């Protein structure tokens, strides 16, 4: 039986690395942190969904 292999866990990290590469030179820290604060509620999904 052929054993399959995983790509990697948390594959989104690689997608976001590409997306992030353009942001800092186009939006300053204050803008980036303001956006980050507003999506915190969405970020909570990550902790919300971890089954302990």
């Amino acid at each position, binding site marked *: *039986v*052929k*054993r*399959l*292999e*995983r*790509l*990697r*866990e*948390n*594959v*989104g990290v*690689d*997608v*976001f690395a*590409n*997306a*992030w590469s*353009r*942001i800092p*030179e*186009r*939006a*300053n820290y*204050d*803008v980036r942190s*303001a*956006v*980050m604060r*507003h*999506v*915190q*509620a*969405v*970020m*909570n*999904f*990550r902790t*919300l*969904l971890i*089954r*302990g």
Partner: protein
Amino acid sequence: MLEKLTAKQEALMSKVAREYIALLTKPKPYNRKTVNTWLDVVYRLYDMKRPQRVEVAQSPVAALRLASDLTGTKQTQLDWCGICDAGWVAFYDYFERIGVTTREENADVRALRGFLSMAWDSVLLDECAIVVARPTLLLVDDDGNLHSTSGPCIEWGDGERDFAYHGTWIDERMVRDPRGYSREEYLAITNTEQRRALSEIAGWDWVISLLGGTTMDRWTDPRTKLAYELIQAGEQRLLKKQSPELANGSQPTYIEPVHETLRTAAGARKWQATRLTPEACDADPALVYGVET
């Protein structure tokens, strides 16, 4: 370089956040083409092509079981790439909407948005992509935390289910038969959040009655206005204490075991926060963080 957001752009931030929060409880119908678009993106990242075999698992448990079978190794983690990444996707989506990035530059993130709007997560293998379907039921409280006091807060297509109380994972029994716990079973719950959850579901009056407790001392911290109550329950002593105000305005109550020789509620509060003896805490219950040793 964008240095300041306009009023219109500021208003858009909340709108985007609300859109993504809504995706958690109101997923779109599963669409194979949308899912495959994301799978094309992610396999391309690793210089691979989407495998012909794409399996839709009805729960994380089912996905991990299949992945374990196919890899020959016990798999315990999903890819952590799907609905749990909604925050990051919202972040990048926003920058596209205000023109900081272009539609072309954001194409991969947009593909992930399509995926997470109708799927939960995945376990991606070299020759099989396992996609986890959305749950058939997902209930949250006003703060967006998983929550239900009448049944499971989350239920999957294959019958897997879980229970939570305002974001704290709890046993099914706490929902189905909260007052069925014996005194010993109640005291055996060592997770203080789970004990609080059961106490709130069953009612604090029931808890005090169950424990056969009598109040030894009450004290309200004059500085914080938080209330404390030292309870004698058989040979055990318990401290019932009020939380400082949380972000949502609530002040939950906790009940925790303390040393059986403590005599005052204020001393018990200090005993929990320091390494001092019960006698020393009762004698001088003033608590100043950063000073006591």
